[in-house]
């Protein structure tokens, strides 16, 4: 029984709960199991799975969403955007619009230019033709290369906080809080390169939303996520929408598309 309890506590600590709360939850669990007259393992299942469920149950948004303020403005608009590299046409005449509080998904076969489209939205690539209109404050979560291998998560928060002249302390506080929403506590001294793939990707996502941008661009954000983290991310996306941020997400995983306001499909690559 003590093993289950130790695993439970450890898993809850990893998910960012504070020690007093963990004590209370552990105590409750042991009492409830005693009530059933069974070992905790038999009542609740494996400790890490139960801890995951409990942590997520505690993270439900309790606050009501902000009231809608009139007609939501547009945060991103692409009109007739095309991109060609030499003879290779990567994007052909793409138009889309994302308003405040909306979630738009970009889907399509591999190689059809989803990442290129997102980079055009972020401004790192210029389109060959078409216009791009967007808000000034953008958060970008790239598929690769979004984190520095040799910096710890906290050092990342301090660095990204300086982008919009936030104090380092505030950046760390916000970053840690956002990490907790994704069910993760930043380890103190591990550089990003030593984190597991899923955890590193969570850091990647947190960095994109650190300055609370008006537009969020996510490129396949759930690489390496287990089911719990995947659920947490979608809950976090809902929170962004409730606060009026616009979200554009490039995705392979089509399971959650019913939660999306609109889907943009890119054509499969044609051989020129």
């Amino acid at each position, binding site marked *: 029984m003590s093993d289950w309890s130790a695993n439970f506590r450890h898993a809850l600590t990893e998910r960012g709960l504070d020690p007093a709360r963990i004590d209370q939850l552990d105590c409750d669990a042991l009492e409830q199991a005693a009530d059933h007259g069974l070992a905790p393992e038999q009542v609740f299942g494996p400790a890490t799975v139960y801890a995951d469920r409990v942590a997520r149950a505690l993270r439900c948004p309790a*606050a009501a969403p*902000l009231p809608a*303020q*009139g007609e*939501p*403005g*547009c*945060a*991103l*608009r692409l009109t007739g955007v095309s991109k060609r590299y030499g003879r290779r046409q990567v994007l052909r005449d793409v138009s889309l619009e994302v308003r*405040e509080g909306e979630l738009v998904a970009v889907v399509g076969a591999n190689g059809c230019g989803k990442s290129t489209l997102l980079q055009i939205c*972020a*401004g*790192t*690539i*210029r389109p060959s033709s078409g*216009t*791009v*209109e*967007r*808000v*000034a*404050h*953008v*958060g*970008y979560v*790239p598929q*690769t*290369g*979004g*984190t*520095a*291998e*040799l*910096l710890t998560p906290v*050092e990342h928060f*301090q*660095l*990204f*906080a*300086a*982008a*919009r*002249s*936030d104090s*380092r302390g505030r950046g760390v506080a*916000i970053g840690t809080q956002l990490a907790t929403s994704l069910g993760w506590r930043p380890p103190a001294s591990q*550089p990003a390169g030593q984190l597991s793939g899923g955890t590193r990707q969570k850091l990647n996502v947190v*960095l994109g939303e650190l*300055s*609370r*941008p*008006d537009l969020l661009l996510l490129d396949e954000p759930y690489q390496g996520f287990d089911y719990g983290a995947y659920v947490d991310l979608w809950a976090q996306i809902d*929170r962004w929408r409730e*606060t*009026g*941020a616009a979200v554009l997400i490039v995705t392979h995983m089509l399971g959650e598309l019913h939660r999306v306001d609109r889907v943009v499909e890119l054509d499969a690559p044609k051989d020129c």
Partner: protein
Amino acid sequence: MQAVAIARATVQGLLRRRSALLMLVALPLAFYLARRNIPSSAIVVLALGVGWAVSTLALFSTVSALQLDRRLRVAGFTSRAIVCGRLVAVVLVGLVLSSVYTALAVLDQDVDRVGGVALMMLCAVAVGAPLGMSIGLLLRSELEGALALLIVLATQFMTNPERLLAHCLPLWSVRGVADWAIWSGDSADLSNGLAHGVGTVVVLLVIITGASAFRLRIHPPDRVLRTGTQPALDRLL
């Protein structure tokens, strides 16, 4: 300030690559020990070694940060802050390295002009850092960059400093100042050396400015949209 944050992050990252740091520190020492019996030559190669180490440091920290830098640009950092911050970080590490080695040279050798040795080291650091960074921005690859650096620096080492070819290579200022500090005491040598150093630094900074503007550019949107909601940082906090 943005540049300060970049400088801090660069130093934090550099200090984590322990074995690489160790080897870079050992590089000038190895050169020095190789020529220790020829005192005048020993200090020159020590300074050149410092320049080599600093430029390699600058090259690798630039190349390894290229993807992150793009993201930092989208997040709101200016390319000037990114370049300046990284350069300052590498120069700081170089200055620490060079003070240690200046002390070594002064203690181990019989040196007339301590200030001259310090000046040689300063040239090495001041030229080495932007040299490594410009190669990193132009070639964008660690292997190719390291090879290019190797070609430039090894040629610098092996060319007779009198020749025109040596004058065209970036670290010649170290030799020029050495002429004054260790051998002749002729102030014309000093001004030649410093002029070459300053000129090289200016050229390299121009290259860096151009290359970073190209590599780190963010294309502004055709129109900037305005939102109607509250300021971002107050949401949910």
